[in-house]
């Protein structure tokens, strides 16, 4: 265990920090072979105020034998976008491993009777055997679809999430989907070509999944069909909130309290009917830009629905977002936003009064996926904490633009697609008071004696969105940073000299 006794960051000037961070990057790159060093150098930088992005390359394929933090396209589609749609059955199509290993790790909460009308925490796989690989799996898929219809008759639709072999053995899952859909009277069956080898990370999986919604849901809607609900001028859809630990619930209430009607949640606690209803929304509000900007842009283009990004982490960003969303509506909603902000101010004050003194000046390093590498920064700052390094697991340049323009401070260390070695070195040198990253990194840093929070799944806690989520976020960060155990890790005998006295001599 390394001894990280204090944070250095706060005692230095911006220029000093920048110089140190630059030097740190150079040091880290030194151990690589020249070619690798050149490649990785493009992903590491120190942010400079005023620049339009963070100056790093992103969304480039990882190096074999170097990184393992990223997922794959299947993870992006099944794990992120489609999996939380609760009333559809999502088949992990191919061998058993992919679905099994990721089963239940994302904590997408939902309301419903599991196994009857909701299926999120169940796991379905066609469990390919050798013969399916050799002779093709379409026949098995037909049988699987029939069985699901029989075992779970109340399902509202089925998606087929392709695993790697599907793309190699020439199965025609689209044809199977079409024919079975017809057979079941037009049932929604969505084939998704999210084989794991596609793209450089889960990111392409998001895109493929978005496209599947477009092609297999939206394009099948009857444009002249009667809407299934009475529209109002205040209908909005939440896009890109996966309801981790209840996030969407603690968000939705704020929208409702300001006078909006939430007609769909994409996709945490969401349903097929909600997906289908969304083209009637007046505004799509987009939390996770990375995973759902594609479908939002499509709806803007095709249905003329505007979309706006928002950020419900921490009171500053929440207030800013509520006002921004209200800006798309009339005064009634604008007043509603102000009323909501005012209503929660006492709670915000209480949380800050309690935790800010305990967290003021503490430094944080982040390395996460989706929107979090930038979105959570405000919440930390509301507590007086400072994010001194951040990076995206699978971000694109538009993510780094948003990060640079709205979030990070001058001299912040930026690391795209960072690998374990680099991240450990950065943490070792920057000595942050907290690291926020994923489960795969968690135990490395904890064992180094660095307080750590899983910032993908909120480490069994949450929600973190909305005002109530902020209270939980603050408590959790305090619990991590200020746990008494960090001071107790070192064995006394390491310094102890040899036996000093022998009894009774």
């Amino acid at each position: 265990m390394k001894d990280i006794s204090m944070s250095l960051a706060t005692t230095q000037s911006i220029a000093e920090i920048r110089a140190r961070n630059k030097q740190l990057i150079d040091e880290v790159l030194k151990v690589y072979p020249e070619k690798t060093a050149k490649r990785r150098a493009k992903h590491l930088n120190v942010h400079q105020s005023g620049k339009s992005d963070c100056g790093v390359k992103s969304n480039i394929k990882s190096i074999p034998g170097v990184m393992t933090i990223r997922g794959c396209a299947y993870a992006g589609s099944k794990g992120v976008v489609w999996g939380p749609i609760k009333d559809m059955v999502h088949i992990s199509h191919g061998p058993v491993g992919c679905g099994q290993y990721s089963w239940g790790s994302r904590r997408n909460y939902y309301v419903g009777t599991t196994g009857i009308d909701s299926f999120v925490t169940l796991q379905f796989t066609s469990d390919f055997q050798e013969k399916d690989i050799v002779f093709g799996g379409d026949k098995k898929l037909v049988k699987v679809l029939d069985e699901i219809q029989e075992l779970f008759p109340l399902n509202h639709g089925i998606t087929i999430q392709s695993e790697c072999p599907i793309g190699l053995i020439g199965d025609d899952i689209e044809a199977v989907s079409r024919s079975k859909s017809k057979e079941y009277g037009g049932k929604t069956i969505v084939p998704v070509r999210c084989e794991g080898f596609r793209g450089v990370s889960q990111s392409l999986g998001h895109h493929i999944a978005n496209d599947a919604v477009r092609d297999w849901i939206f394009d099948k809607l009857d444009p002249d069909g009667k809407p299934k609900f009475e529209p109002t001028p205040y209908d909005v859809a939440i896009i890109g909130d996966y309801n981790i630990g209840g996030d969407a619930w603690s968000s939705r209430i704020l929208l409702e309290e300001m006078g909006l009607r939430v007609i769909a949640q994409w996709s945490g606690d969401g349903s097929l009917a909600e997906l289908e209803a969304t083209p009637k929304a007046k505004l799509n509000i987009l939390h996770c830009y990375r995973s759902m900007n594609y479908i939002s842009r499509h709806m803007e283009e095709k249905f003329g629905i505007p979309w706006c990004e928002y950020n419900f982490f921490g009171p500053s960003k929440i207030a800013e977002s509520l006002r921004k969303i209200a800006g798309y509506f009339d005064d009634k909603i604008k007043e509603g936003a102000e009323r909501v902000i005012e209503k929660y101010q006492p709670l915000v004050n209480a949380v800050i009064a309690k935790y800010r003194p305990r967290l003021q000046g503490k430094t944080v390093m982040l390395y996460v996926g989706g929107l979090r590498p930038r979105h959570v920064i405000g919440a930390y700052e509301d507590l007086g904490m400072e994010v001194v390094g951040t990076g995206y697991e699978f971000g694109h340049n538009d993510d780094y633009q948003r990060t640079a323009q709205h979030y990070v401070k001058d001299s912040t260390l930026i690391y795209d697609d960072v690998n374990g070695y680099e991240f450990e070195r950065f943490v070792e040198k920057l000595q942050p008071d907290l690291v926020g990253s994923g489960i795969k990194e968690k135990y490395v840093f904890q064992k180094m004696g660095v307080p750590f929070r899983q910032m993908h799944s909120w480490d069994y806690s949450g929600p973190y969105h909305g005002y109530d989520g902020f209270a939980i976020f603050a408590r959790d960060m305090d619990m991590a940073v200020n746990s008494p155990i960090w001071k107790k890790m070192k064995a006394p005998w390491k310094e102890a000299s040899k036996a000093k006295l022998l009894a009774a001599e």
Partner: protein
Amino acid sequence: MAIATLPTKACAVNPLKMSQPIGGAFAFMGLSGAMPLLHGSQGCTSFGLTLFVRHFKEAVPLQTTAMSEVATVLGGYENLEQAILNIYNRTKPKIIGICSTGVTETNGDDVDAYLKLIRDKHPQLAKLPLVYVSTPDFKGAFQDGWEKAVASIVELLVEGPNVNGLRDPSRVNVLPGCHLTPGDLDELRAILEDFGLRPSFLPDLAGSLDGHIPDDFTPTTIGGIGVDEIASMGRAGWTIAIGGQMRRAAEVMQARTGVPFRLFERLCGLGPNDEFVTFLSEISGRPVPSKYRRQRGQLTDAMLDAHFHIGGRKLAIAAEPDLLFDLSSMLHEMGAQVSAAVTTTQSAVIERIKTKEVLIGDLEDLEELARTKHCDLLITHSHGRQAAARLKIPFYRAGFPMFDRLGAGHQLSVGYRGTRALIFDIANLVIADREENHQPTPDRWRPLAALPLTSGHRSAAERSTA
């Protein structure tokens, strides 16, 4: 620094405390070939015995002088004499340990004088140790009975320094408090032996109440430390006393024999065990064996794994002083708050408990404190189970009695390994409780109809800022 508060109620509702006589008798159960004898009406013994049997799920030796109405009027001499003779004739004990009870203490029986008379009258008893401890159950608590009994055993049975004053530095006396389980003692024995030390435990419940099946039956204890070994404890290099309650016995030992002692008030938790193995390393002149380096690593790792589950918990705990101090300190070091603490009797360790106030009280006090302080973890003996159910908070059983689960005698709290097991058990309780009772649902955010501006979340939010 905690202060001890005395109860204001006259009535004890759901008492926490076990009383002195069985605390004294318990100590004798850790001696080999012993027969503990309660001097009182047979109900005392019957009840006390039942309590031990339900806790350990073992046959337990305990005898009674069966004081009747007439005997009570006349004084207990005759019953005591008869009991000792019957035990002597029938079970051939190596030692009889006699504890008084409420009825004989109220009556004013002078047991020391009785014993002298009995010895005079029955020379065949000349070599049979008869250790008497005054343990009225209207004074003190279980821990006090144990403390007194062990001190008396040391006083009466340990031989003074011998002429040549020879000591064996590898021999160590261990005086464990009554809050340690047979499993704890075995763990400590293994640790000491790994340092090349040869420990003598007084009392040694591990030999007698560890839940094993012996090859043959005896009506007395089936294991424990022998009278001869006790006699020779003056030849040890050191005495290790565990728990504040054992200071007295350790001091008696030192006074009688000159053997120096070191008191470990706690042995649960990282720091206390660091001190403990460091001390063993010092007195043995051996480095800490790699086994314990590894166990220490496993413990710190367990602390990391569990800190977020235990951290921030508001603990309500009721136990005898040493156990209370030990467990609550460990959990405090894991980040828990000791919000409600109740104990049975006065002790020097109370002021070091990491809370404001420690109430000498009952389980009803604990329940009430836990309710008003919104505690979310309850620790006490098995009788706390209903309070926990009413409070709907997770419940960890610790202390005596634990009659409603198996394995009480094997529960560990000492050592790196024992602390690790304890931390996992408590953290897993908390995790299960969270899964079953505290998952967020949309209802937490759905405004209540009657209170338009107070949405359902309030309780949750307030909790985290409370």
